[in-house]
C-alpha cells in the first residue's frame, strides 16, 4: 500500500503555520495583558485624583474641626462634590475594575459624607455625634481609596511579573520549536540527499540497473527526484543496450572483413594444397600425399574452429541461470586447463575468500569465459610463470569478484582498447580474435563487468564482477 507522505512544501508550510500560530497566540496574550495593564493604570490615575480630592476634603474638614470655620465646611463640600462628579464620570471604568458593589459602597459613603456636611451646615449648633460621623466617613473614604490603590498596584505588579514570565517562556518555546523543526528538516533533507547521492554515484559508476529498479513515494519532492533519477537510469540502461547493439552492428563490419580474412587463409591453403596435390600427384611419394591430406585436415579444423567461435559470438542463446558456488565454477574451469598449465610450466596460486555468496549464472558460459582467460594467460607466459586465481566478495556481499592474474608479457597500451573487439588477435593464425569479445558479451548478459589491468613485461589481471545471488532474484525467478 502506498504511504500518504506529505510533500516537503506541505511540511514546511505546516511548520511555518505552527510558528505563526505560536507567535500569534503570544502576540494576542501580550496585547490583552498590555490592555489590562493600561486600564489598571488608567484606574490608578483616576483613583489618584480621587484620593487627592479625598485628602484635600479631609484637610479642609480638619480646618473646620480645629477652627470651626464654616467656610472650610463649604470648601470640603465642594471638593466632595467634585469627587462625586469624578466618580460619576468614570463610572464605567471604575465599575469594571472595582465591581458594582464596591462602586456603590464608595458612592454611597461619599453621598453620606456630603449629607453629613449639609446637616452640619444646616444646624446652628452641630452635634458631636454628627461631627464624629463626618470624621468616620471621611476616614473611611481615604482608607478605602488608598487600600484600593495599593491593591491595584499589587495587581499591576503581578500582571507585569506574569507577563515577563510568559514572554520568557514563549521565547524559550519559540526557540525550542525552531530548533526542533530545523533539526527535523535538516535530518530529513540530509537523509534524502544522501539517498540521492548514493543513486547518482551508482549512475556515475554505470550501475544503471540497480538505480533503475529503485522507486520512491511520489508524494515527496525528493521522491519525485529519486523517481526521475531512476527513470533516467532506465533510459540510460536502454540507451546503453542500444549503444551495445550499435557497437555490435559496427563490429559487424569488422566481423565481415575479419571473416573474409580468417576464412580466406585456410581456404586458400586448402585450395593450394588441392591444386598442388593434383598437379604433382604423379611425382609425390605416398608419404607426401599423406602429408598433403593431413595439412588439408588441419586447415579444415581451423575453419571449423573459426565457425564455432563465430556461432558463439553471434548466437543470441538465452543463458540458463542457476544458483551455484563461485568456487565450484572456477575449480571446474581450472580442471580443464590443468594439464596445459603443467606442460607450460605455470604454477597456479589459488586464493578463495571464506564464506563466499552464491552466484546466479549460466555455468557453461562462465566456464567458457574463465577457460578463455586461463588460455590467454598461458599464451602470455610462453616461458612459464605464475597464474593467480582469486575469488572475493565486496563489503556489501552483493558481488563476487574473480581475478585472473598472470606474470606474462602484458598488453601493449596501443592495443589495449581493442582487446574486446571481435576478430582482434595478437596470436596471428593461432587465435580467432573472438575469445574476449565473446567473454565480454557473456559477462554483460550476466549483469556483470569485466575489466583489465596490465603492465607490459609484468603481467595482466582480468577482473570479473558478478552479482551475488540474492533472495530477491530467487523470488523473481530470473536474473536481474
Amino acid at each position, binding site marked *: 500500500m502506498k504511504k500518504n507522505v506529505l510533500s516537503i512544501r506541505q511540511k514546511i508550510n505546516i511548520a511555518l503555520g505552527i510558528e505563526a500560530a505560536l507567535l500569534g497566540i503570544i502576540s494576542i496574550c501580550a496585547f490583552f495583558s498590555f490592555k489590562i495593564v493600561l486600564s489598571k493604570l488608567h484606574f490608578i490615575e483616576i483613583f489618584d485624583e480621587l484620593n487627592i480630592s479625598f485628602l484635600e476634603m479631609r484637610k479642609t474638614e480638619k480646618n473646620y474641626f480645629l477652627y470651626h470655620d464654616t467656610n472650610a465646611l463649604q470648601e470640603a463640600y465642594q471638593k466632595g462634590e467634585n469627587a462625586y462628579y469624578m466618580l460619576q464620570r468614570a463610572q464605567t471604568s471604575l465599575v469594571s475594575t472595582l465591581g458594582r458593589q464596591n462602586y456603590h459602597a464608595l458612592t454611597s459613603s461619599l453621598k453620606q459624607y456630603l449629607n453629613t456636611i449639609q446637616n452640619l451646615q444646616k444646624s446652628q449648633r452641630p452635634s458631636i455625634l454628627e461631627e464624629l460621623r463626618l470624621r468616620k466617613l471621611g476616614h473611611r473614604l481615604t482608607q478605602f481609596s488608598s487600600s484600593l490603590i495599593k491593591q491595584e498596584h499589587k495587581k499591576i505588579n503581578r500582571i507585569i511579573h506574569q507577563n515577563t514570565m510568559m514572554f520568557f517562556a514563549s521565547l524559550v518555546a519559540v526557540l525550542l520549536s525552531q530548533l526542533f523543526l530545523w533539526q527535523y528538516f535538516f535530518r530529513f533533507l540530509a537523509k534524502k540527499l544522501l539517498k540521492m547521492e548514493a543513486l547518482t554515484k551508482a549512475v556515475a559508476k554505470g550501475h544503471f540497473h540497480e538505480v533503475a529498479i529503485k522507486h520512491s513515494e511520489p508524494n515527496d519532492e525528493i521522491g519525485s527526484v529519486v523517481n526521475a533519477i531512476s527513470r533516467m537510469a532506465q533510459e540510460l540502461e536502454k540507451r546503453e543496450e542500444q549503444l551495445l547493439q550499435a557497437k555490435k552492428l559496427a563490429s559487424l563490419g569488422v566481423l565481415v*572483413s575479419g571473416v*573474409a*580474412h580468417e576464412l*580466406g*587463409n585456410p*581456404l*586458400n*591453403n*586448402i*585450395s*593450394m*594444397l588441392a*591444386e*598442388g596435390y593434383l*598437379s*604433382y600427384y604423379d611425382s609425390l611419394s605416398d608419404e607426401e600425399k599423406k602429408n598433403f591430406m593431413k*595439412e588439408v585436415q588441419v*586447415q579444415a579444423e581451423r575453419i571449423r574452429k573459426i565457425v564455432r567461435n563465430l556461432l558463439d559470438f553471434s548466437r543470441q542463446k538465452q543463458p540458463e541461470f542457476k544458483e551455484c558456488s563461485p568456487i565450484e565454477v572456477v575449480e571446474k574451469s581450472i580442471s580443464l586447463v590443468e594439464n596445459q598449465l603443467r606442460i607450460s610450466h605455470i604454477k597456479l596460486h589459488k586464493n578463495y575468500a571464506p564464506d563466499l555468496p552464491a552466484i546466479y549464472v549460466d555455468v557453461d558460459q562462465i566456464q567458457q569465459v574463465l577457460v578463455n582467460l586461463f588460455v590467454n594467460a598461458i599464451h602470455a607466459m610462453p616461458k612459464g610463470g605464475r597464474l593467480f586465481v582469486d575469488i572475493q566478495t565486496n563489503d556489501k556481499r552483493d558481488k563476487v569478484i574473480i581475478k585472473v592474474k598472470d606474470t606474462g608479457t602484458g598488453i601493449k597500451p596501443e592495443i589495449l582498447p581493442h582487446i574486446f573487439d571481435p576478430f582482434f588477435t595478437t596470436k*596471428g*593464425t593461432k587465435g580467432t580474435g573472438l575469445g574476449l569479445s565473446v567473454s565480454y558479451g557473456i559477462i554483460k548478459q550476466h549483469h556483470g563487468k569485466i575489466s583489465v589491468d596490465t603492465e607490459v613485461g609484468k603481467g595482466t589481471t582480468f577482473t570479473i564482477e558478478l552479482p551475488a545471488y540474492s533472495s530477491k532474484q530467487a523470488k523473481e525467478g530470473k536474473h536481474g
Partner: protein
Amino acid sequence: MAKNIIVIDDEEVVCRMTKMVLTKEGYEVETFTDSKKALERIKEKKFDLVITDLKMEDVDGMDILKTVNKLYPDAKVIMITAYATLDTAIEALRGHVFDFFPKPIKIEELKKSVKEALGK
C-alpha cells in the same frame, strides 16, 4: 644462374606450397613466415622477385614493397592478400607491384605471373 625469389607469408602452407612449385620450375626460393626477418634478409640480399602477403603483423606487405622499391628498383614484387579491396589493390599498384593476387591463389596463374615477371 637461377633467378632467386623470396616468399613472405605468415601462412606456412602458402610458403611451403609456393616454394615446392617454384623450386620445381627451377627457381631458387627462400620463404619466411616472419616478415620482420624477411625484411632483414631483403636488406642483406637482392632477390629478383619478392612474393609477399599484404596483411601481416609488425611488417606488412606495403613496408616490404617500399623497401624493395628503394633498395632494388629493378626487382619485381607480387602481392598476395587474403581479402582484396579496391583500395589495397590501388595502393599496391601505385607502389609498382608487378601483379596482385587475391587468395585463393591459383598455382598455375602464379607460375605464369612469376614467369612473366622474371622474363622467362
